[in-house]
């Protein structure tokens, strides 16, 4: 499936109803795929972009993250069964996660991003019930960005020692002793 088709299909899962209303009644059938009107996508839930990246990017609200991911994996047309990269990001004001997905069946790739501007207590839903590899990668993100994952089975420091202060990969992390800044 190329990027356009993917965009249409995924967009159809989040039809544009009134803003702020959490989509609960997603259409069960896949007929929505044929309707080629991207404007139907609810812009407050989902937005697409291909700018500055070789993949199709989906920015999703964190409330919709788990829902979207589950559908991406389980829908037979998308079938994104391989999470090949899970990256924590510090965008300055916001913290976020970038998921790189691939389908081992169709070999199409997709990037899903989710951001939050809550730097004190950032949290997202875990996806490790969807892809088991996410367990360790989410723990890595938890180590270095302090992003918490709801429902994660074993969320504790993976690399850092217990009681480490600060989140080393955030941009505002300071450590005069160990960091050499050029």
């Amino acid at each position, binding site marked *: 499936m190329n990027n356009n088709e993917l965009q249409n299909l995924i967009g159809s899962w989040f039809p544009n109803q009134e803003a702020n209303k959490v989509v609960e009644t997603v259409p069960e059938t896949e007929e929505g795929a044929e309707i080629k009107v991207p404007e139907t996508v609810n812009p407050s839930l989902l937005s697409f972009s291909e*700018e*500055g*990246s*070789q*993949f199709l990017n989906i920015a999703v609200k964190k409330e919709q993250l788990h829902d979207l991911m589950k559908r991406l994996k389980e829908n037979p047309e998308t079938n994104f*069964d*391989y*999470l*090949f*990269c899970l*990256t924590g*990001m*510090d965008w300055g004001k916001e913290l976020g996660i*970038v998921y*790189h997905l691939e389908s*081992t069946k169709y*070999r199409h790739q997709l990037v899903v991003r989710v951001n939050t501007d809550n730097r004190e207590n950032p949290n997202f839903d875990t996806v490790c019930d969807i*892809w*088991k*590899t996410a*367990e*360790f*990668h989410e723990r*890595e993100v938890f*180590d*270095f960005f302090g992003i918490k994952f709801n429902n994660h089975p074993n969320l504790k*420091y*993976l*690399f*850092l*020692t*217990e*009681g*480490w*202060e600060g989140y*080393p*990969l955030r941009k505002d992390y300071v*450590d*005069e*002793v160990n*960091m050499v*800044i*050029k």
Partner: protein
Amino acid sequence: MPLRKKMEPKTVNNNFKSEEYFINMGPQHPATHGVLRLLLTIDGEIIKKVEPDLGYIHRSIEKMCERDSYQQIVHLTDRMDYLSSHINNEAVCLTVENALQLEVPERVKVIRTIIGELTRIASHCLWWGVMGMDVGALTTYFYGFRDREMINDIFEETCGARLTMNYNIPGGVMYDIHPNFIQRTKDFVKHFKTKIPEYDRLLTGNVIFQKRMKGVGILSKEDAISFGASGPVGRGSGYSCDVRKHHPYSALDKVTFNESLKTAGDSLARYEVRIMEMWESLSIIEQLIDNIPEGDYKVATNAVIKLPKGEYYQKVETARGELGVYMVSTGTKNPYRVKFRSPGLSNISLLNHIAVGGKIGDLVATMATLDIVVPDIDR
């Protein structure tokens, strides 16, 4: 910040059943290949739970990349998966070249591919030796090293270093290949073709080894995909995940080779995939070594490389699996964020899944077939 506080060991809270006990395998343990620590919950000899505790060799290479220029990042990747350092370098260089839309000469592509495949063989040689050692046949180690030394000599002559070569630079390779390179490589290929059958006779066919490996540490294809297994670990489970096939880079689209696949998913399958891969790498080298095109060995880049604003992702197949480089640039001379998707972290995460229910000996053998390099996991 006081350093002392950071050095305190992690405390462990486990609720045991009465028969179960707890063993701390590592960080200094012969089978963990470095400083990996495994917290084992054991019932007699049966493994109940394996919990890897990582970070003993974490150097925060990703953070260091954020302060380094694009040329300087390359040499840091040598220190991640030091057994396939050339391929790691290549991954970063390809990312930068793609971002700059720089077309490197054909000669560079071929050189990179040949050295990459030699790296893969060298890595598998070492793995084979260590694999034998982990199951108790100590002699294999030296036989593996004998053949690996020849590759290291080739590297030293051309790249100037044996392990952390830093031979790739964005835009090409650092020097042209040494005049002896082609002859030495051919000699090696000839030599090694007689040695792989010897490997098979010494270890693969051995009845004890077969018994140790067959049906141990079974990983199904679905789990392999879900755990993000890549490289020989994934291919041993019948999961076609060779980046060289699916997303060919450098000169790999010009050669023909088979993807080594086994469907059993046990330790023996992973072992056999690596042995098959050595044959495939030899065939790739043979296809390319006589046809290295003439031309420049690098194209000039600016002294200060600035990537256009955007995000770049490049995956390559290292000896251990899929290495991804995710680079975010804001247009300055340093990357905004670099993430290395290392094959080791995904592969170690499935250890608990496949080792539970086996014996301590099985755990060691299974871990050896995962081919762990700890700096690659920790970065």
